[in-house]
Structures are given as structure tokens and as C-alpha cells.
């Protein structure tokens, strides 16, 4: 028989205002096993915890029920408390009489009645609790960073700095990500490449960092501290060990008509290419869809040209499997392609461009060598209209409901740079709201308006028309309630930030969760912003939500700190509330294995002793280190063989019985 103490918390007035806490304590006194019950103002305070510890010793308690807030809040706190007084931490039950009771009831009588029922249910369950011992697992001292943009690079550099090995997997031929395509960065207007490329070089030169470029994560298994990841290295058809990066192959390549991704398709590249001058690794890739050798079997000029003999048309895809203690998701974003926004004529008109395309048109390494020229006729635009929130903050199916956060600032930057470089250019920005929270951000925006004379108009553009080689922009000015038609030479669309298209499949692979917009979900929106709900999987950068560069870098470092904290441990305590199978009841049907999202259930042929009868049976075995204790198998098992430690079927039924009494 258990000796149970029940402690009812007031939580100040949070609980006590709607629940008669003394009545709850009084009501449970007659329940089986209960030898002590009391109430206290703040159970989580030092005084409250001392009260629990002293009572355990005085009364010789074997289990404790605390009626308080949600176990998500203080279960860990109280487990430590009872453990300090010599009770197994799993001999503690929490009845949630705050979030699920006092906060949602107004009537004190009803609240009290419900609190009493919840307390009795917890007592009924605790009567069937058994002490549980957490197991241990090792920690592989290496981290994997998926995505080699500024977020991934920052995280990798910081982890490497602490002395741990890091692998970066980047699907593009080079690391660097979106920041490589940006010209200047707000609010300081320093050159993006100048601040990014040294970090890329640091990553490449670090002894602790290993870069798998042009590679993708193929398969993930295991659990926190012990992930096993298969990485697919796509064939570059160039031997990285031999290539010197001289670029002779690119000069000689006769296939020169492939839209250049790095310049957003505004110029062309060759079939064998290095995306940009500062690429890391500086090793070309052959685009087999464009390469004449792969298309016709002829050509091979690059091979003949290469003095290092690095071209290898027979290179094959390679699969590498490695173990990691932690995985960081840093898959970043893509700007929305506005093909569904026909009112802006993006599909029809070359002079309607997205903001990232505009970045390339302003960049010295871009298709126009940094001279702002209209794509249609290479003339200098004299009037430019910027349209904000294209695909953001909308309600229709083509829009995202969220604010993309960075567009107000980069549009102000574009507007300012244009006015600075070409003062004779007239610049107008259409906005819904201008949102510039951030250090020195609003000052930056005001400079665009006050010093650089950028026209800001509150309102949206309804239609862009091509008339005689220029554009007519039909819009409304909401402050003066005017309908207007503006002449423009170029229209720039600030398109929404979208998570990388790989986010969804990667989230499935990692059993990490994503939200309805495909952004990765953090474990807690305020208090655990860089961890995913899946242990050992961390989030860095825009994959978690729209962010500018400073925020991305800050989050990248925060993420590294969390990873370092994990890798610094030699062993991890595992959750003992895991499933186990009763080998005498299991009939080997594999229904449980089919529903297990973590791959924690294996089948073995094992000799069992069924009431004196010895025979070999095909039965389920749970890998306790992998099991997350979700309970899906226990409800699926047709023979009742699967059960969850700490949440056994008997315990749940006892709770239900207590509630229904």
C-alpha cells in the first residue's frame, strides 16, 4: 500500500480565486493511500518545496500528488524535490488544476468540484505507479548542419570554435546561401560579399569543419546523441582533389545558354560552371541538362582543356553514412516567384523584377556589372516603382498570411541606393505599413524618405500595364483617397520569404515539426526558440521564420550554444516512460511497428516460457533509447501486449474510473 501526500497549491489567486483549495485537500483525505493532505500558497517556492520534503520524511511518504499548474510548467521542478527527499521521481503525479481548471472556470463551486475530481484521479493513478529508472545513452561528439548559408556557417563556426567536429551539408555547388546574392546590407550598407566571404573561408579552412557541398541529406535515423545520417554527394563530374579552380574549362565550354541561377536568370552561364568568383569550394559542376557531352555524347572540350585532368564524366553519386550527436536545420528560404501575380505583369514584362533580381542588377558582379539597366532595352530607368508585400500579409490562396519582415528594410535600401547612385531617378514605394523595428532601422527608413527623397505612398498597386515600351502603374493612395496612374520604367516587387522547398521532406525525415507555412516549429515560441520539439534537432536562421541577417547570425550562434551544451555531455539520461512489450501476450503481428513514427520497434525470434511451455516466438522488442513514449503502439496493439511505463493501461483506466465515480 502506498503512503500518499497530497499538496494543493493556491498559485496566489490563480487557483485559489476559483477553487476552494482547502476543500480539495479535505476531500482527498479519505482516498485510498492518502495519509496527508494540505494546501499552500506557492508550492513551487522554496517554502513550498521544503514543506513537501519535510512531509515526505515525517510521514514516510512513498508517493506525492501535487495539485497545481500544468506538468509542462513544473513537473521537472517537483521531480527534483521529491528525489531530494529520497523518493523515486516517477512516484510523483501532478493534477493540473490551473490551466485545465481554475483558468477556464468562473464558478467557484464548479471549479472546486472539478479540482477534487482531478486530484482523486491523480491519487488513483499514483496508487499504481512503480519507481522507474532512467537509462543512459552516449553522445556522439559531432554535429551536422544542414544548409550552408550564413545561418549554417555561423552555427558551424561557433561549434567548431568550441572544439567539436561539424559537417555542413549544402545542396548547392557552393556554400554561402542567399547572402552571396545580396549587394549591400542594411542598415549600414556594407557590402554583403565583403562580410560573408571571410566567414565562408573560415569555415572551409577550419580543421573541425567538413563541407559536403552539392550534397543532400538522404536518410536520418537514431535519436538525440546518436543520429545516423546518410548524405548523398551528387556527382560534380569534376574531381575536387585534382581541380585547381583555374576556370579554363568554363572559358572553353561551348554550351553557354543556360540561365544563370546566381544572377536570377538575368544572364547566362556555361554548362560547366562555378556559381560565382568567391565560391567555396572553387570547383566547377557540370550541369548535365545543358552539357553537350551528356546530351549528345560528343564535345568533351572541358576534358581536353583541363590541364589537371580533373574532368571525370564517369563520376557517380556517392552515399556517405555518418554518426552525429546533434543536427542543425539551417535550410533558409527562397523568395516567392510572383508568377501568380499577373496584375504586376511579371510573366509578361522583363522590366518587372523581384527584389532579389534587382539586387543582382545593382551588384558589381551582376549581369550589368553594377550599372542599373532595364532588362528589356538596357536603358537607364528614370522612374522606378517598388511594390511591397507581394505575397505577404494577404488572404487569398496565392498569398502568405505572414509578414516577411525583411522587405520594408531592403526596399528602403534599394530606394536609397538608387537615389544615391542615380539622383535623377524618381523612386516611389507603395506600402501597406512600413515596419522597421530593429537597431538603427527606423532611422534608416527615415533617411530614405527625408534625405534621399524617396516617395512613400500608403496603398497598393492594382495593375501594371506596358504602354509603348514603358510601364503604367495603376494604384491607390489611401491617405489622400486618390486613384492614380504612375509612369514607370521599372517595377520592383518585394516578394515574400518562403521556406526552402526541401523543408517539408526534411521535417519528415527528422520527425521535426513544421507549421502551416512550412517553417520549422521551435520547441517553445518564447523560451526555447532554437530547439525543435524533437530532442537533438536544432533550428538556425530563416528555416524557423523570416529574419534579417543580424537576427539570423544571432540565432545561428544561439543554436550553436545549445548544440555545444549537448555535445559537452558524455551521457544522456533517457526518458524511462517508454513502451515495452509483454512477450507472453505479443503475437508478432507487427501492427505496432507500422504505427511507430520513430522506428523504435524491432522483431526478434525469442524463446519464451509460457507457463512452463517453452517455444520460440516472433515478438516485438522496443528499443528504449529510440522510443519517445508517444503511446501510439499501446493503443494499436490488438492483444494488449504493448504498454507504456508510467502511463500503463491500468493506470489510465484507474484515472478514468476515479473521474467517473
Amino acid at each position, binding site marked *: 500500500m502506498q503512503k500518499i501526500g497530497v499538496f494543493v497549491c493556491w498559485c496566489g489567486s490563480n487557483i485559489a480565486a476559483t477553487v476552494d483549495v482547502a476543500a480539495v485537500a479535505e476531500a482527498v483525505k479519505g482516498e485510498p493511500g492518502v495519509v496527508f493532505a494540505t494546501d499552500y500558497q506557492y508550492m513551487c517556492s522554496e517554502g513550498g518545496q521544503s514543506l513537501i520534503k519535510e512531509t515526505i520524511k515525517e510521514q514516510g511518504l512513498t508517493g506525492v500528488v501535487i495539485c497545481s499548474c500544468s506538468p509542462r510548467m513544473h513537473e521537472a521542478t517537483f521531480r527534483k524535490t521529491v528525489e531530494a527527499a529520497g523518493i523515486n521521481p516517477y512516484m510523483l503525479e501532478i493534477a493540473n488544476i490551473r490551466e485545465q481548471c481554475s483558468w477556464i472556470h468562473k464558478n467557484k463551486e464548479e471549479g472546486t468540484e472539478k479540482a477534487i475530481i482531478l486530484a482523486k484521479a491523480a491519487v488513483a493513478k499514483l496508487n499504481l505507479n512503480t519507481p522507474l529508472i532512467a537509462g543512459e545513452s552516449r553522445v556522439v561528439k559531432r554535429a551536422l548542419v544542414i544548409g550552408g548559408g550564413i545561418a549554417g556557417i555561423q552555427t558551424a563556426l561557433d561549434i567548431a570554435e568550441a572544439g567539436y567536429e561539424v559537417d555542413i551539408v549544402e545542396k548547392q555547388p557552393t556554400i554561402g546561401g542567399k547572402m552571396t546574392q545580396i549587394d549591400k546590407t542594411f542598415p549600414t550598407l556594407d557590402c554583403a560579399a565583403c562580410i560573408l566571404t571571410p566567414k565562408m573561408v573560415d569555415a572551409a579552412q577550419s580543421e573541425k569543419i567538413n563541407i559536403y557541398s552539392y550534397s543532400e541529406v538522404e536518410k536520418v535515423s537514431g535519436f538525440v546523441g546518436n543520429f545516423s545520417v546518410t548524405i548523398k554527394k551528387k556527382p560534380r563530374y569534376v574531381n575536387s582533389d585534382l581541380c585547381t579552380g583555374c576556370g579554363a574549362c568554363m572559358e572553353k565550354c561551348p554550351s553557354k545558354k543556360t540561365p544563370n541561377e546566381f544572377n536570377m536568370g538575368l544572364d547566362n552561364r556555361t554548362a560547366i560552371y562555378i556559381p560565382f568568383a568567391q565560391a567555396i569550394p572553387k570547383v566547377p559542376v557540370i550541369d548535365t541538362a545543358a552539357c553537350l557531352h551528356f546530351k549528345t555524347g560528343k564535345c568533351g572540350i572541358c576534358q581536353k582543356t583541363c590541364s589537371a585532368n580533373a574532368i571525370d564524366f564517369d563520376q557517380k553519386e556517392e552515399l556517405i553514412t555518418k554518426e552525429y550527436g546533434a543536427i542543425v536545420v539551417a535550410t533558409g528560404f527562397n523568395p516567392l516567384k510572383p508568377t*501568380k*501575380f*499577373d*496584375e504586376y*505583369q511579371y510573366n*509578361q514584362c522583363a522590366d518587372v523584377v523581384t527584389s532579389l533580381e534587382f539586387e543582382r542588377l545593382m551588384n558589381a558582379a551582376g549581369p550589368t556589372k553594377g550599372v542599373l539597366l532595364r532588362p528589356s532595352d538596357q536603358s537607364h530607368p528614370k522612374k522606378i516603382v517598388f511594390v511591397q508585400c507581394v505575397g505577404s500579409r494577404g488572404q*487569398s490562396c*496565392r498569398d502568405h498570411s505572414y509578414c516577411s519582415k525583411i522587405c520594408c528594410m531592403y526596399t528602403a535600401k534599394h530606394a536609397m541606393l538608387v537615389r544615391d547612385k542615380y539622383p535623377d531617378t524618381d523612386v516611389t514605394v507603395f506600402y501597406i505599413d512600413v515596419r522597421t523595428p530593429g537597431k538603427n532601422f527606423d532611422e534608416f527608413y527615415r533617411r530614405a524618405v527625408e534625405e534621399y527623397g524617396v516617395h512613400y505612398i500608403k496603398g497598393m498597386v*492594382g*495593375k*501594371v*500595364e*506596358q*504602354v509603348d515600351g514603358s510601364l503604367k502603374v495603376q494604384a491607390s493612395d489611401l491617405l489622400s483617397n486618390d486613384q492614380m496612374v504612375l509612369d514607370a520604367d521599372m517595377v520592383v516587387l518585394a516578394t515574400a520569404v518562403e521556406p526552402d522547398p526541401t523543408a517539408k521532406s526534411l521535417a519528415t525525415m527528422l520527425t521535426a515539426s513544421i507549421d502551416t507555412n512550412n517553417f520549422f516549429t521551435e520547441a517553445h515560441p518564447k523560451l526555447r526558440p532554437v530547439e525543435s520539439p524533437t530532442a537533438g534537432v536544432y533550428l538556425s536562421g530563416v528555416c524557423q521564420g523570416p529574419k534579417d541577417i543580424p537576427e539570423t547570425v544571432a540565432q545561428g550562434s544561439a543554436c550553436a550554444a545549445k548544440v555545444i551544451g549537448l555535445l559537452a555531455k558524455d551521457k544522456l539520461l533517457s526518458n524511462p516512460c517508454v513502451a515495452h512489450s509483454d512477450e507472453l501476450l505479443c503475437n508478432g503481428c507487427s501492427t505496432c511497428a507500422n504505427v511507430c513514427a520513430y522506428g523504435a520497434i524491432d522483431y526478434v525470434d525469442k524463446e519464451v516460457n509460457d507457463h512452463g511451455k517453452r517455444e520460440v516466438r516472433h515478438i516485438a522488442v522496443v528499443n528504449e533509447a529510440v522510443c519517445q513514449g508517444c503511446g501510439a503502439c499501446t493503443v494499436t496493439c490488438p492483444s494488449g501486449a504493448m504498454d507504456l511505463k508510467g502511463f500503463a493501461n491500468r493506470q489510465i483506466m484507474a484515472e478514468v474510473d476515479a473521474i467517473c465515480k
Partner: protein
Amino acid sequence: MKYSYYPGCTLKTKAKELSDYAVAAAKVLGVELEEIKDWQCCGGVYSTSKDEIASKLSSVRALAQARDEGHDLMTLCSACHNVIKRVNEDMRGDENFRTKANNYMAPDMEYHGEANVVHYLEMLRDVVGFDEIKKKVVNPLTGRKIGAYYGCLLLRPGKVMEFDDPENPQILEDFIRAIGATPVLFEQRNECCGGYMTLNDKELAQKRSTAVVDSAVRNEADCLITACPLCRYNLEVNSETKLPVIYFTELLAEALGIKEVK
């Protein structure tokens, strides 16, 4: 396939050919349009004032009748379609309006939005299929460059009409391809022609309709097609630039080789 058909007043008078060609072409495509009995004018404009009941009751009556006949209710005129579909949405989702409308009319069986409202174009796309139409075309309109004029009513509000993407429509362009002609995209294809303003601000109507036709001319359309009698009238009469404006059903009949049958 059979539909309860709501032609509307204009299609019985000024825009008779819009309807006549539609009924004849439907027959060739294996679709029967049975005109509902004693239909009344839809009112021409959907009133957005929340307490307006009376002007919507004729739509409710037509909808209830289609429900009783057991068919979807087919419309053709953009304005009728807009009014009736939106009233149907109100009968489905706006409890206050539904109760009042039913109390007002005291029908044998209360109407709760059971009928579906289908535009003729939706039937062509979703029931017959443009590929099937292509097969039945005997007189392909090869070489004709046609601008599809959607106007403002046919597709909006997008969430209620659920017809096509209001900013990126393609149903009429697909239709034009099905009858063998070449669609011409022009910027103003889904903008308002100013038709409703023609009486109280003629200048505005002229400005809007001229902008529409100019846009089509600039993009080298030979003619415009529409599903809306008011748009057609406005573009023909009020636009300072002239371009033939034809009902899409007339071209369908021509392509199916039944234009003379009428």
C-alpha cells in the same frame, strides 16, 4: 447532363444571341438546359448592405426552384451569376439573412443553400472538358487572335465565386485554345469596364472602357469576347477605341458549326 437554366432579362432581349448560341451549343455537347419557370430579374447588382433582403429574394426563388427540380442552377450572364451565387452563399452561411429570407417568402420547403450555381464556362471546363470540345470543333477558328475579357464580376469575390484565380485567370484563354484560336493576354482583361457607372458618370465609363480596349489593341487582339451583356454594351458604345466585342457563346457555336442554326 441536365441543368436548370437561369437566362436573366438581358439574355431574353438585347443579348438574346448570348443565350441562344449557348443553348444550341450545349445540345451539341450533350448538355440540356431547361429554363426554370417564372424566373424573375436577379436585380442586376448584388447589394452589399447587410439589411437588404428584398432585392435578393428573386435569386432565392430561382435557387429554391433549381433545388426542387434536382439540378444545378446554370447561369450565363456575369451579373446574374455574381448576384445569384453570392445570394446562395448568404443562404448557406448567413443565418440571419437565411431566416429572414425564408420568413419573408414562406416557401413550402425552406431554402438553405442546397442548390449549386454553375456558370456555363465552368460546365464547359469541368463537365464537358476543353479537350472534348476540341474534338467536337468542326470549324476551328485558326489564326484569330482573341482577347478574353473577364471584367470584374465574373471572378470576384474570388472566395465566393471559386471560378478561377481573379488575378491570374485562364479559363477563357483555355476556351479560346479549345476552339482553335489564339488567346491574347492583355493587362486590363480582369479590370472593370465602368459599366455600372454609365448612367451617372459617363465620362468615367468612357475612360474605363477605352482603357480596356486600348490594352487589348496594344496587345494585338482582333476582337474581344465576354460573357457579360453590360460589358459588351459598354465596350462597344462607350469606348473611344473600337474593337469588335463578341459573346463567347457565339464563337463556340461558330466553331461547332451551328452558328446558322440558332
